[in-house]
């Protein structure tokens, strides 16, 4: 069982991820915006952060994760995105990102990604 923080402004995603991951035995935290996400990340010190790359607001998912990592460097990071070229953009400045998952994805994909990322210690 791990603590997973989801930062995602699409509420449907949040709902589904919350159900799936909690049924998989994890403790799930949800944030719908940049600001809320950073605060929540610092407060709950998650094992895994699942963050959308393109969030409403000033920061992208990578910059968001960076701020949380500054406080809790052990946090694993999965970036989800609808854009195909994020993987290319995720260069050296975002080398802390463990996995990029492209939307749309299946429930099995996100569970597998979470398990795999958490398994690497």
């Amino acid at each position, binding site marked *: 069982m791990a603590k997973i923080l989801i930062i995602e402004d*699409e*509420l*449907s*995603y949040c*709902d*589904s*991820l919350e*159900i*799936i991951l909690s*049924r998989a035995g994890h403790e799930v935290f949800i944030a719908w915006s940049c600001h809320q996400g950073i605060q929540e990340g610092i407060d709950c010190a998650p094992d895994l952060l699942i963050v959308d790359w*393109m969030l409403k607001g000033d920061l*992208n998912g990578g910059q968001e994760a960076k701020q949380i990592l500054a406080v809790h460097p052990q946090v694993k990071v999965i970036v989800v995105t*609808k*854009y195909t070229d994020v993987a290319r953009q995720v260069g050296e400045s975002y080398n802390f990102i463990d996995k990029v998952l492209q*939307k*749309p*994805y*299946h*429930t099995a994909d*996100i569970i597998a990604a979470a398990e795999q990322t958490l398994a690497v210690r």
Partner: protein
Amino acid sequence: MAEHTVGSNRQTELRKRAETTLNHRSQVPPDTSVEGINRLVHELLTHQSELEMQNEELRQAQLELVESRDKYLDLYDTAPVGFATVNQQGLILKANLTLAHMLNVDRPFLTTSPLSKFIVVDDEDLFYLHIQSLKTTKARQTCQLQMRSGKTDSFWAEMQSIFVEQPNGDMICFQITINDISVRKQAEEVLQQDREELENQVKAHTAKLSKVNRQLSWQIRERQQVEETVRRAERLSSLGALAAGIAHEINNPLGAALLSAETAMEVKDDPDETERFKKCLSNVIASLDRCVRIVRNLLTFSRDKPAVKKLYPISEVIQQSQDLVQSYARQHQTTIRLALDSDLPKLVIDRLEIELALINLLRNAVQAGGEENRVVIRAQLANSAVRITVEDKGCGMTCEQKKNAFAPFFTTRQTQGGTGLGLSITYDIVQNHGGTIEVQSTLGEGTTVIVTLPISEAVGKTTEQS
């Protein structure tokens, strides 16, 4: 000698008549005194002198008469027109020398010849009609016909005739003047030829012109078709650029629907998860609904219909344009802020065209970048128009760029696939709606494009009614 004899006979006769008259008068016996005889002689001398003077005066008067007659004869014969006096049978009674010269005959030959003898055969009918109408109307008649001159030549003559009659209305004769109008006729013929030639030239030119005209209108049609094709191509190109953004836009709700549906499957058999199951299903519906809306927008945009102007709320059109550019903007990490006044009216517009125009402006603004990455689209009521401004804090334009902003195929983004048609098409669309478009830009500080769309009186009424 004979004249002299006639003269002396006449004198003798005159003498006798005088003596007789005197005999009748001399009732009183003459005074035979010397005084009486002297007085008589004196009286006689006075009479003689008086008679001599009268005689001289008479002779002078006769001379003047002869001179005058000669002058008139001369005038008659040498006048610059031919004169002829013709009797009822058409015979020439008298003719002047000029006419004889014209007809190239001796004058004595003319008298008692019929005038018709000198008319060219082809024109004899004309002459006959001329004389007939003269007899009928008794008014001056004019005609033009050809007359013979000598045995072989002919000339064009203008004939003017009058009817001379006795006090009781019986005809005496015709007085006819004949003018040689050959030179005039020739000039007229030349003129006629020139006119015909000119007319032919005009006809030829007209034919040439109308051919060129046809070619031109064909070219214009062709050009219009090309322009139409270019417009369509530009719309499709805008559509292509938008399609990528829209695909992303669709991806999100589609992914959410997929995830929600799968999650629902996951929990469907768990009696404790009924609420979550329902939530997942309603999420599926909401997400798919968003997909439907986006696809509908896309279809509306790509439909290639001829321009149809209808009454639309302009704020809705602006919002839809912003919707369509939203994903493109996010891709460029740019936000588009809407600032629409609440009292915006409906306008008679071709909705798709105006959307296309606004999308072009918004995409340009997004591309202009800038540190703040912020584009604002405002709309407000200004007099009898709606003023829409698209403002960015991006790179701005140089004077040269500003000058050419609306010129077709002018682009600063050639390497990024800019066609240079966006603003030009936007300009056309705004013009077609009777509106104006203006660019205000400072290099390095940003650009504001101001579009003004008029609310016509008729539209204002319609708006009130609706």
